[in-house]
């Protein structure tokens, strides 16, 4: 079957989709967006977390056909998504059209940026920058899911307590770092977010 939906603000069409296929499979194998990771395939690990109509979900548990006509944001579109939100142009649901991340851009997305030493020049969302600055990435497999989940929490809750962060990330497993650096990264992103907000007089 064919599935039409919006991915990172742009209309996309996936063809020859098997009816029992997951949204995760469509994103990775049909659209060439491997940012969302495939690990447990049972909603346990959160590494496939994406936003579905603004809501964080495990894309491995969404049937491809259920995404028809809906808006999906993946980690590849997170920088743009966060930028639009910061500009006030975002209501939590991508609009499609001129803004957004093209499939080509998304497929070629890299956290490295143009300068391999400093990472400068790459488009990063604040939460992605915070993960790099806090050293919250080790093997990196859980990172995309954590980024999407953490970004959504910071959208809802500008001043999260440690308990809020732990609760929001309780569906994302990391088997490398033991979560402390991840906690640091989210605290850092929250602090930077409130600095920006106060400097703008919000």
């Amino acid at each position, binding site marked *: 079957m064919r599935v039409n939906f919006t991915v990172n603000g742009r209309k996309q069409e996936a063809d020859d989709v098997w009816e*029992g296929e997951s949204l995760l499979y469509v994103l990775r194998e049909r659209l060439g967006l491997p940012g969302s990771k495939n690990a447990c395939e*049972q909603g*346990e690990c959160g590494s496939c977390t994406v936003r579905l109509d603004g809501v964080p979900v495990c894309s491995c*548990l969404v049937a491809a056909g259920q995404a028809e006509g809906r808006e999906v944001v993946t980690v590849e579109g997170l920088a743009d998504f966060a930028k639009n939100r910061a500009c006030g142009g975002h209501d939590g649901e991508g609009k499609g059209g001129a803004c957004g991340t093209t499939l080509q851009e998304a497929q070629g997305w890299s956290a490295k940026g143009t300068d391999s030493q400093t990472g400068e020049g790459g488009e990063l969302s604040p939460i992605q920058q915070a993960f790099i600055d806090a050293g919250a990435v080790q093997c990196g497999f859980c990172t995309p899911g954590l980024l999407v*989940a953490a970004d959504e929490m910071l959208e809802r809750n500008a001043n999260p307590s440690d308990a809020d962060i732990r609760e929001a990330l309780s569906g994302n497993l990391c088997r490398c770092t033991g979560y402390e650096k991840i906690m640091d990264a989210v605290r850092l992103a929250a602090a930077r977010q409130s600095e920006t907000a106060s400097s703008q007089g919000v």
Partner: protein
Amino acid sequence: MDFLRPDSWEEALAAKAEHPTAVPIAGGTDVMVEINFDHRRPEYLLDLNRITELSEWEVGEKTVRLGASVPYTKIMENLRAELPGLALASHTVASPQIRNRGGVGGNLGTASPAGDAHPALLAADCEVEVESVRGSRRIPIDEFYTGVKRNALAPDELIRAVHIDKADGPQQYSKVGTRNAMVIAVCAFGLAVHPETRTVRTGIGSAAPTPVRAKEAEQFLNSALEEGGFWDNGKIITPSVAKQFADLCSAACNPIDDVRGTASYRRHAVGVMARRTLTWAWESYRGNAARTEGVA
């Protein structure tokens, strides 16, 4: 496999009538796991996500009509006052991502003895509204669970909503697992105090082939509370009454040994949870009673 995408409830009923083997999918948190692992290859998947009314709820005078697909997150955010037991149970469901998708209809449809919502539904008391092209009916929750992962639905029926009695007193919920998030219950216990009828109702999860109430324990407790005048004098529950209640709740279990726990541990843990939830709920009942008297 065929993917059926009804736009309305009527279309969904027609599709289910035409294809009774069709597997309904809403949040997908059970169905997709089975498909991903090749445990299940249904001929038809019946997507219920497009039927918006299934994600809506109405608060009535006596009951809440909870659409089958209302996600647990919404129950936690919006129905804490009306359905405190179910809201607490919702908190224990998996993770935020899963709570954003899963709902009570899926728990009922799967009818796993470990479903987190069941003990809260049994304790609060509710009716499950099911419908087919033949008509609509309401199944009392006490008659809903018929066996391990079996329920009272006919092959052509779909779950539309659950009509849950609004809380008329304190409700509590407790669940045993290895950590807070992402655990299937080793066992779980729900308890609701109903001052209007002067009864206490219970629900036990993951400790019998189906979710069950501890009916003998309820009967014992209800007469002990009545005889002791507890509903009026606001006294604390006597330790011997709490112990007897806990023992009877343990006795209501019919658990098995499995990877999550042994039968004897489950029996023991249910007794502990029964005593604790009774104490918590009764303490808030007493607190409220005292406050009311103070104001009056």
